[in-house]
Structure formats: structure tokens, C-alpha cells
């Protein structure tokens, strides 16, 4: 082989061809075969999926007053590996965020890259800290946008509204039950950032906008709620009961207009609340209803045509031996009409009405009134109550259940049953959520009343209503529940309190009153119950403790709803009573 210039040129050219072919193959290998892998690795370095948080929906009352909404806050975090001056940073952070120095010092003298220093820092404080960090040229402290839930009314309606946890999940009340609608859906955006961590907007990738949570409108009217809460506070001061509940409902639709319990807690300071303060007793507490339950046996007997409203029943002069056990009345009644059994609240009369029906039929009516099953209200934690089936009843159960013993109901079940009497015999599902709307006002869902069943005929409902009207009269047990200018129907209840070890506790009563106004065209049903009220023994009755509370609430509610008083009733009210009521208003 001759090493002439041509050969050398050929060898060099061949070498170049080989070299560039190798480069080409490498390029093809990197750009095509390994493209996805390396693109992924590069994306991991520079591209991040940035979440765009959805705003949680607000909760409003029936008049669009804000009950719960969001306020922007920031979470202050640190990257201990990027701190430029630990001591100066600790000084500034502890001073600005009012945190213990030792705790922050310990946290920052590590090599952790993500340390949460403080959550829910108000924006003004965060801005101040940010400015000072910049002025002192301190690095390694970062701020994350967040939001916290605030409740402008604090204690008011606390059990109904509920609250969220620190991850913004509703865990109680409407916050919990309507979480699906309130929560919204977070969006995201793929972004690239430069070495300094700043976004390169030019390379912004796929993006999905967040969907903010819906607004939930409650049936509760804050004006009525305020009336109820104020009267409940007065009752707590006056009688110091262990617990108390008041419910106002609209009988035609089942809407809950007000619901309040004591003890209660401040929603904005929920971390300090005790578990017993957080319990919504209107739906999660069992109570023996006492004589308010007599409406069930009377309604059942009338509906089954066992008796007429004016049929007389022998009430055994105050003591009736049934099943080897004496049953007592609070007075020695001889013959009472069915109406008067309710007016005078005769245990023996109510028992005889139930006996005339028989175990099975009476049980059927109890269930038809909704006892023993959840009402279906949009609140979490509701209990079904406690009703035993007739095959587990004792011989005397048929005489005790009509007067509200041997049975456990919730206050809401009792109010719902009274609504059925007030609206002509139809059992409705109680509602607390009126509608759900989007941020632009578009209605997503409007909740109409749900009629469950016709419990009793309208005629029977009218008869019971008339009897209950007599209860709130000078002849009845709830004269103190009267409201000047209005006809009221209602029923008192006084039940001995069941002790923790079973059996009844002496001297401890659960007093209640359930009624509606105006009796001839009911606009609201109210239920008042006080557990273990500290009243004098001779005064510790539903008609004397719960009745006046209902009266005050009903009077104020009637004024607020602008219900027209009946002139003839107004004139019939004694002057002293009117004067007393007027003076108590101020």
C-alpha cells in the first residue's frame, strides 16, 4: 500500500465519517430511543405541578347572612439548609410570630428542608416578617398561601354550622355533611422554574382552573336563632340545667328555623372546646319525652276511631292497677274526655287510649310518627332513638310508653312529630339546607320538602290541635306558655331523669314543652327541653319551666314574622299579664 496523499486523505475522511457516524448514532440514541427517559428526568428537575387551591364555599342563613367563610392566611416554613444566619433568623421569627425561642432554635438547627414554623399567620403579620427578612437579607424562610375558616357569629348556631380540620375537611355540622359541595375541586398548573426557583412563564404547561366550593344556604333564620339563643342563655342563668335544647321548625315544609343547644362552644376557638360542648343534642341525645308523647297515643286512638274527641274515659280516680303495678295521675281524675286527657295530662287516660289500640297497633303509630328512625336531616351524627318492638315489651310497657317512658327520642324527632300534628297529619323530613348555589348565583340544587307519609288524617290532626289548644289555657298544664294575642297549641312534658346506672334519679327531671303558633294557621313549631333544671320541686314541671321560655320565644318570633294578633284574644288577656309581658320585653 502506497502512503500517498490520496490514501492519507481517504483514511482521514473515513476516520471523520466514523467519528461523526458515532456522534450521529449517539444523538439518535439520546434524542429518540432515550428521549422519554431523559425528558422525564429533565422535567423532574425543572417542571413542577403547582396546585391551585379551590376556595371553600360559604355558608349563609335564609337571609344570606354569612355564617362561615374564608380568610387568607399564610403558613411560614423554613428550609434549614438554606439559612444564611440562623441566630438572626431565630431572633426575627420568634419576635414576629410570637413563638418560643428555644423551640424555633431547635427546629432551625437541623438539616431538615421543610419545617413548618407556624400555620394560620394573618396576612399583615406575614407581610411584616417578609419585609424584615428582605431588609436583613435573611434567606431560608418561605411563605405558603393558605386559608382559614372564620365564623363571624362565634357561639351562635355552632352545633349546626360545625367546623373544619386543618386540612379544610368538614368534620362536624353542615361543614361535615355538605363537605362534598363546600370543598370544591383544586386545579393545577405545570410550570418550569429557573435556578433561582422563579417560574419561567414562557414555559407554562398544561393548566386546569380550580372549581371553588358552592355556597350552602340554610333554612335557619339568624333573627329567630338569635331570639332562641338569647332565651336559652336566660334559661341557663335562671335554671342552670345540665343541658338544654330549643328547636323552631316551619310545619308546612319541615324547615328548621332555629336550633340551639347548651352547653355550646365558640367556633373560632374550637380547640378549647370540650367534647360535651360540641355535641348537637337536638339530634344526638336520647331523652324520655314524658307527657309530650301523649299526643301519639291520643292521635292513634282518634285516627283508629276507637274514641271520639269528646268520648269519656274513666281515669280510676288517680290510681290504676295494671299488670300488678299501680299507675298514678298527678290528680284524682274520674271521667275525662280524650281532649281533657291531653289538657290535664292524665297518665291513666293516655295509657287506656294505648291499651284500646293494642301493642302492635300502638307500636305501628309510634313508628309512623317517625320515632325509632333517623329523621334524615342534613346533619351528621343523628341517632335513631330507642324504641323496642312489642315482643320485647313488658306487660306494663303499654301503659308507660304513652306517657313517654321506656322510650328514647331525640328533640328533633319530637318537634317533627308535632309538625305532623300542625300541618294536617303529614310527616315531613326536617331540612336544614335550603339550597346550594354556585359563586355566580346559579342554583345548583334547591331542596324541596320531602313528605314521608300521612301519619294521621287531617281530621284527626285538627282534633288533636284543638285539644292541644286547651293545654295552653287556664284549664291546662301550660297556661304559662300563652302569648298575648295568639292562640297556641302545645303539650308539656315532665319526665324523671334516667340515671347512668339505670332507674330514675329522684328529684331530677327533664322538662319540656312542644307547641305551635298560631294554632289555627301554624307558622312555626317550637320545642323547648331542659335537662335537670335547678328549679324548686313544686315548680319543676314542663308547663312552669319550659312553657314560659316557649312563650317568650313565640312572642318575639311572632313579632319578627309579623304575625297578626287576634283582637278578641288580645282583649281577653288580663291586663296584668300583658303588663308583665311588656315589662319583661325591655
Amino acid at each position: 500500500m502506497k502512503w500517498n496523499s490520496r490514501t492519507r486523505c481517504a483514511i482521514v475522511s473515513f476516520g471523520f465519517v466514523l467519528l461523526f457516524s458515532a456522534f450521529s448514532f449517539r444523538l439518535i440514541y439520546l434524542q429518540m430511543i432515550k428521549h422519554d427517559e431523559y425528558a422525564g428526568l429533565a422535567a423532574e428537575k425543572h417542571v413542577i405541578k403547582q396546585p391551585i387551591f379551590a376556595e371553600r364555599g360559604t355558608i349563609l342563613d335564609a337571609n344570606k347572612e354569612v355564617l362561615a367563610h374564608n380568610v387568607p392566611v399564610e403558613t411560614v416554613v423554613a428550609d434549614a439548609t438554606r439559612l444564611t444566619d440562623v441566630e438572626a433568623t431565630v431572633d426575627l421569627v420568634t419576635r414576629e410570630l410570637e413563638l418560643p425561642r428555644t423551640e424555633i432554635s431547635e427546629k432551625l438547627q437541623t438539616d431538615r428542608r421543610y419545617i413548618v414554623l407556624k400555620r394560620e399567620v394573618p396576612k399583615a403579620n406575614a407581610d411584616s416578617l417578609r419585609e424584615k427578612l428582605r431588609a436583613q437579607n435573611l434567606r431560608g424562610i418561605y411563605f405558603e398561601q393558605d386559608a382559614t375558616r372564620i365564623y363571624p357569629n362565634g357561639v351562635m348556631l355552632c352545633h349546626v354550622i360545625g367546623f373544619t380540620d386543618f386540612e379544610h375537611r368538614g368534620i362536624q355540622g353542615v361543614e361535615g355533611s355538605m363537605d362534598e359541595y363546600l370543598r370544591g375541586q383544586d386545579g393545577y398548573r405545570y410550570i418550569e422554574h429557573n435556578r433561582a426557583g422563579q417560574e419561567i412563564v414562557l414555559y407554562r404547561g398544561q393548566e386546569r382552573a380550580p372549581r371553588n366550593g358552592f355556597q350552602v344556604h340554610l333554612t335557619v333564620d339568624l333573627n329567630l336563632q338569635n331570639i332562641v339563643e338569647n332565651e336559652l342563655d336566660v334559661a341557663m342563668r335562671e335554671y342552670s340545667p345540665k343541658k338544654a335544647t330549643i328547636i323552631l321548625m316551619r310545619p308546612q315544609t319541615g324547615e328548621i328555623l332555629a336550633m340551639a343547644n347548651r352547653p355550646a362552644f365558640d367556633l373560632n376557638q374550637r380547640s378549647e372546646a370540650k367534647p360535651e360542648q360540641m355535641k348537637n343534642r337536638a339530634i344526638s341525645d336520647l331523652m324520655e319525652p314524658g307527657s309530650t308523647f301523649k299526643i301519639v297515643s291520643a292521635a292513634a286512638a282518634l285516627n283508629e276511631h276507637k274514641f271520639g274527641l269528646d268520648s269519656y274515659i274513666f281515669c280510676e280516680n288517680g290510681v290504676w292497677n295494671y299488670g300488678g303495678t299501680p299507675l298514678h295521675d298527678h290528680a284524682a281524675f274520674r271521667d275525662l274526655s280524650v281532649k281533657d286527657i291531653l289538657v290535664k295530662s292524665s297518665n291513666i287516660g293516655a295509657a287506656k287510649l294505648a291499651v284500646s289500640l293494642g301493642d302492635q297497633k300502638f307500636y305501628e303509630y309510634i313508628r309512623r310518627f317517625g320515632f325509632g328512625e333517623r329523621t334524615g336531616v342534613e346533619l351528621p351524627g343523628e341517632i335513631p332513638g330507642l324504641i323496642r318492638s312489642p315482643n320485647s315489651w313488658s306487660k306494663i310497657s303499654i301503659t308507660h310508653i304513652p306517657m313517654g317512658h321506656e322510650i328514647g327520642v331525640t328533640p328533633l324527632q319530637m318537634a317533627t312529630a308535632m309538625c305532623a300534628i300542625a300541618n294536617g297529619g303529614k310527616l315531613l323530613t326536617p331540612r336544614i339546607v335550603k339550597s346550594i348555589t354556585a359563586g355566580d348565583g346559579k342554583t345548583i340544587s334547591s331542596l324541596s320538602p320531602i313528605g314521608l307519609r300521612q301519619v294521621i288524617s287531617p281530621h284527626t290532626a285538627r282534633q288533636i290541635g284543638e285539644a292541644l289548644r286547651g293545654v295552653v289555657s287556664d284549664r291546662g298544664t301550660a297556661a304559662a306558655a300563652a302569648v298575648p294575642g295568639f292562640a297556641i297549641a302545645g303539650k308539656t312534658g315532665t319526665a324523671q331523669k334516667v340515671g347512668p346506672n339505670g332507674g330514675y334519679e329522684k328529684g331530677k327531671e327533664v322538662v319540656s314543652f312542644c307547641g305551635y303558633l298560631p294554632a289555627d294557621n301554624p307558622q312555626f313549631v317550637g320545642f323547648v327541653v331542659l335537662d335537670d333544671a335547678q328549679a324548686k320541686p313544686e315548680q319543676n314541671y314542663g308547663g312552669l319551666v319550659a312553657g314560659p321560655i316557649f312563650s317568650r320565644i313565640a312572642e318575639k318570633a311572632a313579632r319578627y314574622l309579623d304575625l297578626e294578633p287576634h283582637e278578641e284574644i288580645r282583649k281577653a288577656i288580663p291586663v296584668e299579664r300583658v303588663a308583665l309581658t311588656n315589662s319583661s320585653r325591655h
Partner: protein
Amino acid sequence: MTRARRKSWNSVGAASLARWIVLTAFLALTGLSYVYLTLQLYHLGDRKKALETEVANLRMQNEVASAQIAALTSRSALQHRLKEGYLKMIPIAEHSIVRLTMPARNQEDAVQPVSIQRVVK
């Protein structure tokens, strides 16, 4: 001599030169425009980001203000002010209330109220 010089003279085509100059200028301008527009894109991106931040801040301030308004106009706050004496309210006397005939309320799906009157036998 002059003749020889003439022979070695390389003539330059004015048209060709002009074409190259135009082409080069065009390419240079295109390149510069590309660089300028790319920089503009970055600049506009930064402005967009700044505006987004500003809008987010304004929205945040709005939310803070809304929260303050809600807190200050809440029933609890107003009652507190009423108790403090900051607000004064005078109850309306019964004789000052003029009642109008109540309009019939027509609620959809509502169960009709039942009039409780004496049962006629």
C-alpha cells in the same frame, strides 16, 4: 505593465455583492428579531406573572376586607356594640305599628295549613 495589472484585476459583481449584503442583513435582522422577540416573550411572561401576583394580592386583600366586614356586621358583633352603648335602639311601641293585611303565602310544595276550628258533629 499597465496591461499586466489590468489582467490581474478581479472584478466584483455589484449585483451579486448587493444580493449577499441584503441576504446577510436579512438573516441578521431575522436573528436579532428572533432574539428580541424571545426576550420580549420572557419580559411579557414576567409582567404577566407580576400582574397575576398583583391580582392575587388584591383578591386576598378583598377577602380579608370581606372577612372583616362580615365579622363587624355579624349579629354577635352588633349585639356586643349594642350592649356597650355604641349603638342605640328604641323599641317600636305597639301603637306605632301599622299592620297591613298579610299577603297569602304561596309556598311551592308546602303542605297546606290546617285550620283548627271546632269539630262540627
